[in-house]
């Protein structure tokens, strides 16, 4: 009898476990929504004095932040937003092609031993804390990169982006973008590598069968297969670059303009770095203002993620 009981009991026990697990999964899913809502509400209520408070006091606060250059919230946050997006997109542009190159090298070109070693190194790169990148960028890269940027400014200065004279020391958007590119590189690389490795062998063989060279095979089979993965990896990387604080804070000489002169100092600043820089000496209203800029950053990351979703959907169709 007992031997008959167990098979009957097992599905029952399995059912409870199923229910419990379902509950846990639901709870986890809901928890992330609750956390998100809590963050949003925190930002919104702490930033409320900006909207609902005494406007003349707000103007005075913002004016004290900017040394009298502007006294409206939008005049303050829009240049910051511009700087944030500019730095992040530049970093993404630099990192994107290099990352795809590394990923393809690991997945299709490198001998197995080298590929394993390289994957390991790339993952290690992702684990380095940003403050280390900041120190490296601020103390080593800034003086070291000046001759190169100076060369760029001298010979490519006719392109508005590289208009000279190059600032010395090079605590500029260009240098920050290079450091951020190094930081987001492992994210794009490791995600694209994983996707490339999953390309169906059948498709690859078929491409070879049609007489394709290796480069043509990658163009025909690997890249189209990995497209949506590459896009979502890039968006993840962009998200990281948008919120990067320490490295920017330690390298960039900040300014509040809409300038795209990458090689000149004191042109742009990012929202995250600005919060970190101004928070220690801010009074109550100042903190509200900074949290207000944080709210804008929060919304922008949402917009970026939403756009990424749309692009990925289109790409995968």
């Amino acid at each position, binding site marked *: 009898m007992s031997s008959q009981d167990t098979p009957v009991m097992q599905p029952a026990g399995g059912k409870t476990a199923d229910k419990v697990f379902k509950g846990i999964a639901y709870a986890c899913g809901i928890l992330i929504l609750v956390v998100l809502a809590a963050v949003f509400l925190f930002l919104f209520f702490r930033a409320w004095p900006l909207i609902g408070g005494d406007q003349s006091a707000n103007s005075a606060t913002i004016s*004290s932040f*900017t040394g*009298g250059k502007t006294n409206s919230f939008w005049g303050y946050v829009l240049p910051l937003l511009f700087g944030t997006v500019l730095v992040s997109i530049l970093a993404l542009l630099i990192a994107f092609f290099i990352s795809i190159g590394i990923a393809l090298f690991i997945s299709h070109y490198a001998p197995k031993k080298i590929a394993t070693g390289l994957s390991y190194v790339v993952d290690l790169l992702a684990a380095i804390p940003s403050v280390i990148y900041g120190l490296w960028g601020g103390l080593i890269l800034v003086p070291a990169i000046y001759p190169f940027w100076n060369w760029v400014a001298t010979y490519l200065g006719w392109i508005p982006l590289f208009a000279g004279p190059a600032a010395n020391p090079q*605590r500029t958007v260009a240098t920050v973008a290079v450091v951020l590119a190094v930081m987001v590189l492992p994210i794009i690389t490791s995600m694209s590598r994983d996707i490339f490795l999953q390309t169906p062998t059948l498709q690859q063989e078929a491409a070879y069968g049609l007489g394709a060279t290796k480069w043509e095979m990658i163009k025909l089979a690997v890249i189209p297969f990995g497209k949506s993965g590459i896009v979502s990896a890039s968006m993840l990387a962009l998200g990281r670059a948008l919120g990067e604080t320490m490295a920017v804070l330690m390298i960039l000489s900040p*300014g509040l303009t809409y300038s795209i002169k990458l090689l000149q*100092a004191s042109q742009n600043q990012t929202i995250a770095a600005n919060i970190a820089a101004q928070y220690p000496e801010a*009074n109550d209203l100042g903190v509200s203002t900074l949290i207000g800029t944080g709210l804008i950053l929060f919304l922008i990351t949402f917009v970026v993620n939403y756009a990424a979703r749309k692009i990925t959907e289109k790409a995968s169709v």
Partner: protein
Amino acid sequence: MRKNVLVRSIAALSGIVMLAGLAACGDNTASTSSNGSSSSATKSEPVSGDFQGAGASSQQAAVEAWIAGFQGNNPDAKIAYNPSGSGAGVSTFLTGATAWAGSDKALSDDEVSQSKAVCASGAAFDVPVYISPIAVVFNLKGVSDAGKHINMDASTIAKIFDGKITTWNDDAIQSQNKDLKLPATPITVVHRSDKSGTTQNFVSYFKDAAPNDWSYDLSENWPNSVGQGAKGTSGVISTVQQADGTIGYADFSQVGKLGTVAVKVGDSYNEISAEGGSKVIEDSKLDDTATGENRVVVKINHETEAKGAYPIVLVSYMIACPAYKDAKNAEFAKSWLTYVTSDDGQKAAQDAASSAPLPSSLTSKITKSIEAIKTK
């Protein structure tokens, strides 16, 4: 929350009880005992307990030295200082969470009236405790080795920091430095990118000494977009070190191996020194716009012509109540401020942070203000 409310109501209750005790004493006994108790508080009767302060980060090195020195006499006193910045320090003090605040600027009238809610009686007052000369540092190949100087008057420095003078061999600089051969290197100005009392004190020197060359309003944030911004004193120093042709400003203690600018005072060029910083304060008057009992606010005389004076200084204050709701805080504040402004305290700060000692012309006024803190 609930614990906080409990603590506050106990504090309020004990405050009321203390007030009743004070009233019972009458003032003829209080005046004689206040002298006696103040000396006993610093010398024979050690203070014990936990005490918090918050405020200006410029004072941090000095406060650390003061805490060490104070604990030598009062081993049971635990003191914590949060260098959260002048603005944050004052607002924390105004909530009653700290026993004192450090600030790079004197209280505003508004803050003084707000403090009446926090102090047991009267309004908060500020006394100068820390005078720190601000160095104008520069890095120029062949000119700026450690201890080297370059001569400039106020208007030249203001023009450089306003982007009006852009190369080192500009006539304005060369004519004041006949014996130096200055290169044609472009000047890179380095300023603080964060809010800072150092910035405010630095530009207030331009405002007074070169008003025609400096049109910006006083502010703790750097007002123009000339040159480069760097976070904190350490950021300014490392940026100045990184390239040829840079010039910046920083606390005297942080100068290290960089060259400094000798500033024109009267007919001579004076190098930066702690004594020079004291001399300009000695030659300054009290700010008569700072009304309020016991307040000692210095109006720095940037146009001083005193011999050996160095006019670019930061004066940092400590803010305290004349009477506290908590008797322990009162005893501590009195004893702490007495130590900080004493010769011993100023010596400790000078060793730790290269600050300038308080001139004797001020100490009598400061002592009088501190004596006014009611401990019983």
